[in-house]
């Protein structure tokens, strides 16, 4: 115990200011808290980054690329993104195409030109070329045997009559993803496909958003017979499969991006409307909605200011999960030929085109499929994380 003068001060009445000091805790709004929780979910963050990158490359990629999606160069058809090159001499390298064509390339992998054979010796199964003065022979005697026995090499390269081994394997620097059968750059076509997929996703989502919220909100809010009728309409619409709508629409409009978007607009909103209706039904019972009625708020005000904002959590999650669905649907429709037409590139059409040469040129299927998969996964991860982050019950 402290003795002395300090003692008297202790027993003095505490002033009001000292008593009133209070630390104000910085507190978070609903969205800040949700963002904090979302950040903790690593998979969702990865998904978010991928999506952002996807948007950036889809928007800006085609602007900086040297090719457009429809540029064809038939001589460069079906070239893989990675290939073996043979050294002819220090400044000349060649690449052998699976169709037994020769191309000159740089040592880095840039394609220069295709070579015309000087002589096509079919009797001896040889093609003779001249590369910068040197004589290069493509000997494909063993081609037939190699088909049965894969361990045998299909062809041999002879430079100045000396058998040459593969020098190295390089990445195709001209066409990053290789080319398709028409010599179109697959990379740029995948990026264009991204544009189409994202356009479809956004438009379909926006349409769903507005129709779904409007319809579901009214149905849930009014209840009773109106709700019953509106729900039955939703049920009827969702019984007919999407494919049927597309086909029926094709009778009126030509197949293409528009048709797909219209068909998706007709069917996808139902899911959103159902969610909004469910949310509305439950939020309707909350006391602040009753309070709004007692102060005289009209129905529209209650819906727009009280019910929908509080339903945003599940709405946003639903939107995010709808996007991969939309992307896949568009890809699928394009794949079976009901979507965009050539030369437009959608991931679905790319996949479809790739089927023909799938054994020899598997990369042509690989890249569009990967694009679809990664995009869908990214949105799914993000959607999963959002669902957890926006769930009000988990908040504390």
């Amino acid at each position: 115990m402290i003795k002395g003068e300090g003692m008297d001060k202790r027993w003095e009445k505490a002033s009001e200011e000292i008593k009133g000091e209070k630390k104000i805790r910085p507190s978070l709004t609903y969205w800040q808290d949700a963002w904090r929780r979302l950040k903790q979910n690593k998979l969702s963050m990865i998904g978010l980054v991928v999506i952002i990158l996807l948007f950036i490359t889809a928007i800006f990629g085609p602007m900086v690329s040297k090719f457009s999606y429809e540029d064809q160069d038939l001589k460069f058809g079906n070239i893989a993104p990675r290939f073996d090159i043979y050294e002819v001499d220090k400044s000349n390298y060649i690449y052998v195409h699976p169709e037994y064509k020769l191309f000159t390339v740089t040592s880095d992998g840039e394609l220069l030109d295709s070579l015309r054979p000087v002589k096509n010796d079919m009797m001896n199964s040889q093609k003779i070329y001249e590369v910068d003065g040197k004589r290069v022979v493509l000997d494909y005697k063993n081609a037939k045997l190699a088909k049965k026995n894969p361990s045998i090499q299909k062809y041999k390269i002879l430079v100045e009559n000396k058998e040459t081994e593969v020098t190295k394997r390089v990445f195709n620097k001209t066409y990053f993803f290789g080319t398709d059968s028409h010599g179109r750059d697959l990379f740029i076509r995948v990026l264009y496909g991204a544009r189409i997929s994202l356009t479809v996703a956004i438009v379909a989502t926006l349409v769903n958003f507005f129709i779904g919220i409007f319809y579901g909100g009214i149905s849930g809010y009014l209840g009773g017979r109106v709700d019953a009728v509106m729900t039955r309409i939703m049920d009827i619409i969702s019984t007919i499969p999407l494919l049927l709508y597309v086909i029926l629409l094709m009778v009126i409009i030509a197949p293409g991006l528009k048709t797909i978007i219209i068909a998706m607009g007709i069917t996808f909103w139902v899911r959103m409307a159902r969610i909004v209706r469910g949310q509305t039904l439950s939020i309707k019972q909350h006391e602040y909605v009753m309070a709004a009625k007692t102060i005289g708020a009209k129905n529209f005000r209650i819906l727009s200011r009280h019910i929908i904002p509080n339903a945003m959590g599940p709405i946003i999650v639903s939107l995010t999960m709808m996007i991969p669905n939309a992307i896949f649907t568009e890809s699928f429709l394009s794949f079976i030929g009901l979507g965009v037409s050539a030369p437009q590139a959608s991931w679905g059409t790319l996949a479809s085109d790739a089927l023909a040469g799938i054994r020899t040129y598997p990369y042509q299927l690989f890249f569009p499929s990967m694009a679809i998969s990664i995009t869908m996964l990214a949105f799914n991860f993000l959607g999963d994380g959002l669902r957890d982050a926006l769930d009000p019950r988990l908040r504390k």
Partner: protein
Amino acid sequence: MDNKNDNTLIEIKNLKKYFSKNTGFFKKKMQHLKAVDDISFHIKKGETFGLVGESGCGKSTTGRTIIRLYDVTGGDIIYDGKNISHLNERELEPYRRKIQMIFQDPYASLNTRMTVGDIIGEPLDIHNLAKGEARQKRIYELLDTVGLSKEHASRYPHEFSGGQRQRIGIARALAVEPEFIICDEPISALDVSIQAQVVNMLDDLQKKLGLTYLFIAHDLSMVKHISDRIGVLYLGKMVEIAESDALYDKPLHPYTRALLSSIPIPDPELNAKVDREILKGDVPSPLNPPSGCRFRTRCKYAEGICSEKEPLLEEIAPGRFVACHFSREFYEGTKK
């Protein structure tokens, strides 16, 4: 039916509110939940009328029906001489300013996505009472009235405690300058020491603004404190109405007596001395109430007549209404 004069602000006449459910599969078979079954009372200008009862008695339903959150199944609500029970939404608009409500759950009665300022300002916007700067000024005024400050206007509800949220709810109700406020269990969800703050504030506001209250609660001690007159509900029926002092000094209806004696007194010695009338059994289902007097299944005074004839609310003495076949005997003290 009871003492009416020009001072009556609101009169409830034979009010009924039934909730119906169609339980039949093919044929219509209606099941009626008679939440409020023919009750009548009146409230004078400037007074506080307490409405008490236990769960299922219909007190909250009564409040919500008066403010027309529910439609009236039967009976009349006469506000300041006008019958408002069957007006449509548009005709009710002016009454939305005169009659307001304060809700029970401070955590659910405010929209968490709106700022406090917007919550209080919403009634002003709906009724076009103030715009722009005048609106802001009015919002600050209201915050001040309920003991909050200007800075609170830009905050969100979750940043406040239960007691403060209830004040915000009160400020919202006051924004339209009402005459009559229905308080639906406004303090049940608050801490004990905060309850006293809110009750005092309601009291002060009543005196300052000349408000009339319908105070719905199940906490009998608090109701007695704040009310001038009290009505006791049981299973949708009004069983007793009296001035609060008279009711607590000499309860006449057996239910009221049991209710009052069940309250534990915060005084150990008094508590031990009290002769508790502990009711047996539970409240019967409102879907299938007992015939005659609804309370007879738990009443120790029940006799044959109680199951045959329903007792009506009668004025036994000036201002004292009881619905019991033996009310006179209880009043005179001649019943066991």
